[in-house]
């Protein structure tokens, strides 16, 4: 029996210490998935914590035939997808008022955010900026494929999709990312041009 399975069994029997070991082991993969899905460190922290709480509460439902990581990341992915859907719903249904009833302007998702642009430039993590434009489920599939090397069958199992649906989602998402990448490159080139020296 693997050490991980032993921890799972102990945790299922009520050992908080064993569950803590599992949290220690999987905190980074779960957090990374949440961060890649949600795009903000605060939301990612909250989502990762919530993922572990849900895993703790539903540990009796865990099927030991499946890898624990797949089960855990599946919870995280579904939680993030739900959260993004709620966020979108809130954006559409919100009456553009704050808690005091004052109106405010919703930020334009297409307008450049100076802070985000600066951070993006510093970290060179351009792909993160492009991921947010993908469909939520497509994004989850891409993250599982490229950050966790999941096979199409494993992604299908985690996201409750068919293998062919996963394949088509991955292809669509890759093409969309390439399109966004091209647009970004063109925009960057256009912005750079006015500052270039006439000598060049």
């Amino acid at each position: 029996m693997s050490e991980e399975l032993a921890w799972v069994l102990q945790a299922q029997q009520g050992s908080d210490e064993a569950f803590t070991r599992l949290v220690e082991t999987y905190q980074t993969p779960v957090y990374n998935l949440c961060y890649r899905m949600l795009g903000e460190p605060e939301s990612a922290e909250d989502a990762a914590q919530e993922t572990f709480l849900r895993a703790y509460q539903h540990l009796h439902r865990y099927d030991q035939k499946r890898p624990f990581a797949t089960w855990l990341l599946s919870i995280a992915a579904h939680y993030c997808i739900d959260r993004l859907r709620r966020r979108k719903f809130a954006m559409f249904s919100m009456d553009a008022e704050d808690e005091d009833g004052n109106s405010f302007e919703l930020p334009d998702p297409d307008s450049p955010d100076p802070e985000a642009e600066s951070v993006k430039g510093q970290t060179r993590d351009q792909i993160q900026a492009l991921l947010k434009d993908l469909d939520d489920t497509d994004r989850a599939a891409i993250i599982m494929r490229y950050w966790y090397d999941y096979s199409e069958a494993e992604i299908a199992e985690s996201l409750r999709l068919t293998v062919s649906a996963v394949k088509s989602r991955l292809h669509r998402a890759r093409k969309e990312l390439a399109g966004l990448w091209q647009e970004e490159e063109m925009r960057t080139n256009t912005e750079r041009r006015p500052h270039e020296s006439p000598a060049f």
Partner: protein
Amino acid sequence: MNHQPFEEWQLNDTHLTPTEKREFDAHLRACAHCAALTETGLALRSARVVAPAAGFVMRFQGRLAVQKIAERRRRLWGLFVLILAGVGLIGWIAAPYIFAVISSPVEWLTAAIGYFLYLVTSLQAFGDVIRVLGRVVPDFIPLYVWMVLFSTLAGLGLLWTISIWRFARVPRGVAV
């Protein structure tokens, strides 16, 4: 521009022969779309794994403790409301009888004995009917009907047991 088969090669992570590789490189120089597909593929494969801020496990333990306290409090409140509602309902049903007993005890006692005798005689009569039916009916009912009847009863019993087990079971993570 025709992107096939270069696009499919990339999307399916196809292993290329040297000839295919040369064709692919030549296509990339001319096709911005496929070049972008390659660049995003490389970016995805080289993207770093982001770790949480230090102390994640401790923060989780704190959150779990808060959750357990909240769950315990919720259960206690639920129990309290349930008991209060039960006592209120019983009180509401029993109030007229209690008032009757207090105002005229003899009259109530006579009525209660009358009801008790009525109940006992009714039960006796019902028992007699069941006994007679028990002697007569089996001769009229074929064996398969009995089998269906007992199977249904056994199924319902099993369903009831499973329901009780599911409702009574305390989920993990909830302090008892």
